[in-house]
């Protein structure tokens, strides 16, 4: 499930890596941009891609135990809403298990799971978007698609991370049931790439969760910036989750019928991953 969210979130690419100097400078035209505009552009650049991908998710617990899963993913926008389909290929115990996520405009996304051992499709409903997401460091809220209008925003003093100048857009979620009091987006001035997100509890001074997208693992395609490696660290729990994109095709032909519960129960095959 986490992978499904991240598929839409990362919107994946396997072309040449993006370097800050490879992209046209954004700072010049950004002088007059508001915090809202900066965030809007950054989110727009990151989302909105149909994709077929193979990803690996590694969760490392406080005690150093690791759990690695691999998922074959497909993600498509239907009527402007993201729908994702994923099937586990590793570990062996989970092979064949499939998940479906359907974005909803007016409420939390729908999630369905298919367990081949039981031959059953079941809806998974959770009451709160701040709840943790299947043993990862993400919450349902983290994997939902975000738009600038979801937040009250303001521009904090600029910063430099890993040698790159970034805007720090400080946001407060407007939507209901957020688990965060504040989220800081650290957006590269050069290309609007979101390099880091810092999540704070209400009233807290220190971020308890940080999501990083290393520049060395970013790719650019069709004017979209796609992080191919994401590291999510939960300082509160002492855990971290790493998502790595192993293979990717952008805007493939994906039938709408794939994103249905019947496709889950039919154990429908995903189209082959012929990388771009």
């Amino acid at each position, binding site marked *: 499930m986490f992978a499904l969210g991240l598929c839409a979130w990362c919107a994946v690419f396997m072309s040449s890596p993006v370097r800050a100097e490879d992209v046209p400078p954004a700072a010049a035209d950004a002088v007059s941009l508001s915090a809202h505009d900066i965030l809007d552009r950054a989110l727009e650049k990151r989302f909105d891609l149909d994709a077929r991908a193979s990803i690996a998710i590694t969760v490392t*617990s406080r005690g150093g135990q690791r759990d690695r899963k691999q998922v074959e993913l497909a993600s498509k926008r239907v009527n402007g809403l993201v729908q994702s389909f994923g099937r586990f290929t590793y570990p062996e*115990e989970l092979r064949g298990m499939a998940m479906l996520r359907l974005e909803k405009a007016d409420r939390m996304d729908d999630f369905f799971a298919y367990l081949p*051992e039981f031959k059953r499709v079941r809806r998974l*409903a959770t009451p709160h978007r701040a709840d*943790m997401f299947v043993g990862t460091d993400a919450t349902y809220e983290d994997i939902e698609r975000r738009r600038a209008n979801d937040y009250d925003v303001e521009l904090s003093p600029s910063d430099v991370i890993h040698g790159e100048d970034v805007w720090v857009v400080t946001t407060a979620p407007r939507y209901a049931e957020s688990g965060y009091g504040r989220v800081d987006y650290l957006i590269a001035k050069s290309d609007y790439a979101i390099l880091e997100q810092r999540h704070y509890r209400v009233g807290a001074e220190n971020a308890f969760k940080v999501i990083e997208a290393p520049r060395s693992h970013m790719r650019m395609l069709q004017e979209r910036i796609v992080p191919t490696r994401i590291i999510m660290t939960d300082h509160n729990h002492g855990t971290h989750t790493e998502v790595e994109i192993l293979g990717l095709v952008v805007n493939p032909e994906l039938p709408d019928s794939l994103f249905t519960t019947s496709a889950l129960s039919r154990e429908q095959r995903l189209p082959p991953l012929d990388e771009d």
Partner: protein
Amino acid sequence: MLLFLAGVTVFALVGLLRLRTDVGYAAFLGESHPAVRRFDAFLERFGGGYPIAVVWSCAETERCEHVFDDDALRMAATVAGRLKSRPGVRRVESPATSLLVLSSEDGVVARRFVDEHGPVDDVEFLAERALGDKLWVGNLVSADAQVGAILIELRASDSATSVVAYAELEAALAPFRDRGYRYHLVGGPIDFVVAGDELRRANERLIPLVGVLLAGVIWLLVRSVFAVAATLASGALAVLWTLGLLGWIGWPQNTLTQTLPPLVLVISACHGLHLLWRYAAESSDAVDRAEREAALLRVARDIGGPCVITTLTTAGAFLSFTTSGLESFVRFGIVSAAGAGIALLLSFALLPILLRGVMLAPLDRGPEGEGGAWERALHGLTRVAAAAPLAVVCVAALLGAVSAVGLPRLEVDVSYEDLYGEDSRVVRWVHFVEENLRAPETLEIEIGLPDGERLSAPERMDRLAEFEAFLSATDGLGRVHSILDPLRAMNRLLHDDDPQYERTGRTARENAGLLFLLGGAAPLDPWVTVDLRYARLSVEASKVPQDRLRELIREVRGYVESELPPSWTVTLTGPAVLVHTMVEEVKHTQLYSFVSAGLVVLVLVAVFLRSFGWAVLAMIPTGLPVLLTLGVMGFAGVRLDVGTAMVAAVVIGIAIDDTVHLLTQYRRRRARGLEAAISIEQAVVHVGRALITTSIALALGFLSLVVSPWSSVASFGVVASVAISVALLADLVVLPALILVLSRRRWPV
């Protein structure tokens, strides 16, 4: 000199400001103790195992009729919500905010009783389901829905985390207490913080009481208000310096070190009593200040040597606690030894200055004066010993032998009620929770599989289930919480709530799938690690006596060895095991400190008296009271606890003082060529009143601990007081009789 003392006092005051108090298992056992390290590793791995339970009953408030009433749910949601993001808090569960996993028309739905708008519309439906859910009943809510619980898992077992979490908890509960809710708090952190606070408050009341008792004893001896004030001032300064030293070393206060102030005060008063009494005698004929100063110097020379050696023996006995495996005992031993030294220093530095500089009139020697009732009584006492010394020695030997038989019968035990006292809030809360919700203690078990194996294999799940069944059926243990119940529940929900599917999966793939789905509804990390190699079993346990706990742990270990695969690593930890470890360590401390205190004292006395034979002789009236007291306790079935386990070493260290003073005077007279019988009689008369007075001061000082709410502290006071009294009797009767018997047999005494 006064400038130096003032400087050190300022330095000590600064140290006092640095002093902090630590509570918890680590404060008692030490952070590096293997049991604490295992527990910390367990907490790190599962993020739980050291919970606080906040329990309330709607029968005790008008705010609700049952836990799912609107007001009760809002209260629980507010408290849980506030605590959730507090420092040190890992996880919070409550009837309002915990997920209730249900089957829905087309799947599985996780619900809460309260959302961001308040209690949901279908509370009654959810309540009905919650009361049928094994994961809820007896955990978050009682079967009749009258009692609810908020469970707070702390991030670590250290003192700061517990103290901060408790403070946050109290702040969160305060507004609801004002509205009529009554809360019962249980869990290790509560035990330590609340009971520790009760002990601290009791000690604050205790110190003035000790001061008043000592003042009374000193006044009876010298009838001088100024002498009383000067002696107590010297003692108070000794306490301040000792605590300041503790602060500068950086060691925190703990349960044991809280007994330092009365202990140092009493030791200091004893030195003062010796000094005052001899000064009273020596200065009786002094006509001016110069003569009084000369008398003071003579007194210092006269008793200085014995006081130094008695301080060394006391300090040596305290240092015997450094043989303990308990860090708190080790530190207590070192600091109390330093305290004994400081008490000596101030008694011979500050007290003489006060007496010389301010007090002009000779000290009153009491209404009877020399040759009065005291002297007659002491003469009478030695004559009893002289009349039938062999009989006295034989009776003493017989009592010693009988007591030695009682020694092996001594058991160390710590009952919860005895430790904290029946009136403690902690005990009352535990009783309430045990009667209304669940067993208050937990035994935590960590099961680790070899590399490459995963718990999802059905045969491993079955082994876990069998182990759970064994644990549940073991007397003293209760329900077992683990991954199995949620897994079974998920399987049932996946199969349209069909009860026949309330079981684990038949294959590893089924179990892996169920675990994955379960992870979508609730966090799994409290029960299994992400790689499915480690599992946690949390077993409810009653607060059973130590011998039953020891037996119970042996039974569990026996099962592990005989029934579980040898390749599995099974670690027993949690509060129940830590309590067991603490008691076992106390038991070892009692034995080792007794032996090592005896040896240290023996060597020091041998050096001081320059005779091993004399040292052995001195140990007889010192060891006899310890033997008698512990032997009688063994026969009477009175068990040693944390407090009374310290008695042997403490009493040996203190009781030897009187013996040394007596033998010093005796040997001086023998050295002047007096007969043994005359020498011992004169020695008893010379130091007898001081010995009696200091023993009364010590006995009363220890006896004052009886007002402590902690039974272990109170019983330590009583036992030590009795032992000191018996030691006095042994010094005044048995030692003279022994000397006479030996001298008549031409032993070189």
